[in-house]
């Protein structure tokens, strides 16, 4: 399977200590990887290294230039920094994702606008194209930001804790959208909400300064404890679940 990028013993430091240390990590074309680990373990840092926003102090990240370069990665940030009262429409925000392709945008071509319309339709936002952001629900907003991440048709989609502001009604729907998107792009999804991570995730990467990759989607209790992410899942009745083997 063609790879998209490979990290070779990447270390990142913000001054004191390491945020990431000796990370070897490879992502292939149709991967759907859940990135888990404790807060402060370096999950967001990992995404920023991939986006090229943070330069590693040592090691390197190599992109498969036939498929991808640093400028064609879709990104759904953890918190949206935009002001939801800002006078922009849903279409405007989704179109702003074209900055993935062009660094300075003057005019939108009609093909860009058509593409925005397709994305809006695909994400079930039809009828809201000209709405401003403060008219939308949390779930709708999340879809708008997902639209912004995918309009450039990236080969790789990075999601930072997308569950954070999705209402539970929309959650299944959202993961179903991801499953469909996964057919045309690799997805890397950061989550510390391990119990609730989607069953569509094909494999896991555990990040806590170091990175351990689990090719199959199983998680063990010992492994969670070893990574300092104590999790207690409280449920009623039968819940589908997966348990990973512990690291060697």
């Amino acid at each position, binding site marked *: 399977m063609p790879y998209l990028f490979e990290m070779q013993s990447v270390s990142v430091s913000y001054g004191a200590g390491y945020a990431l240390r000796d990370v070897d990590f490879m992502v292939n074309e149709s991967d759907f990887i859940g990135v888990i680990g404790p807060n402060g373990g370096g999950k967001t840092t990992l995404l920023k290294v991939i986006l090229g926003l943070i330069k590693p102090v040592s090691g390197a990240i190599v992109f498969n230039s036939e498929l991808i370069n640093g400028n064609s990665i879709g990104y759904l940030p953890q918190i949206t920094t935009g002001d939801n009262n800002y006078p922009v429409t849903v279409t405007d*925000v989704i179109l702003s994702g074209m*900055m993935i392709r062009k*660094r300075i945008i003057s005019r939108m071509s009609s093909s860009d606008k058509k593409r925005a319309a397709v994305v809006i339709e695909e994400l079930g936002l039809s009828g809201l194209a000209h709405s401003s952001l403060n008219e939308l629900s949390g779930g709708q907003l999340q879809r708008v930001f997902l639209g*912004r991440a995918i309009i450039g048709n990236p080969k790789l989609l990075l999601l930072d804790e997308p569950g954070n502001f999705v209402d539970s009604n929309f959650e299944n729907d959202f993961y179903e959208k991801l499953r469909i998107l996964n057919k045309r792009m690799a997805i890397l999804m950061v989550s510390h909400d391990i119990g609730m991570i989607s069953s569509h995730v094909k494999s896991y990467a555990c990040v806590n300064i170091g990175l351990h990759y689990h090719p199959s989607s199983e998680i063990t209790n010992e492994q969670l404890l070893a990574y300092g992410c104590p999790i207690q899942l409280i449920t009623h009745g039968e819940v589908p679940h997966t348990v990973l083997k512990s690291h060697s």
Partner: protein
Amino acid sequence: MFASITAGLAGTYIVSRKMVFLSGGITHASFGGIGIGYFAGFNPVIGAAVFGILSALGVEYLSVRQKIREDSAIGILWAFGMAVGIIFIYLTPGYSPNLMGYLFGSILTVTNADIIALGIMSLILISYFSVFYRTILYISYDEAFARTYSPYVNTFKYITTALIALTIVLNIRMAGVILVLSLLTIPPNIAMIFTRVYSRIIFWSILAGFLGTAAGYVISYYAGIPVGATIIFTLVLIWIIVKIIFLIFGSPRK
């Protein structure tokens, strides 16, 4: 006319980016330049322009670097500019007859050069905003996201801020240091009563600004009141009327 074009474009940017306080800082800081201009005997508008642009860029720089809280920086610049202005005006021998004009605005002190300068400024702003409309919109909507992909975010922020500082300074001649801010902030707020689309806000701001300034001039001429005051008064009146109209008829889009 030119004043309403520049104020409409700059004002929409300021209001939607919540930069009203920053603009107040720029305006008052530029008073320092006016004072130095008087004292040293060069055109006070040039002094104001230099002070305005430097203080605007300074505040943007500090906020990018996050070395000091932005509102504190603005507060300091605001008062410092006024202080410098007052010091130099008092050091200047003789009374400065035009001082009131700079504070409250006056048609009498507006020269042909001022009008030409505002006209050029309008052209610059129109072409800048129409070429880079999308980029400016995206950066000011979600700077962090734009920064993820574009290395030019800071460049654009600095250019836009500098242009806005210049706009403010050029409009000081007409509306005065104390009132120019309202010339920039009221028209977009009138527009935002009935539209939330950025480009339409710009259009309606310019129109509202034009109506307000035109009516303000007429009143000022017949009543002999400083034009800045009559313009602002008219603009607020328009704002209230539009607000009432939309409260009574039809539900405005939020």
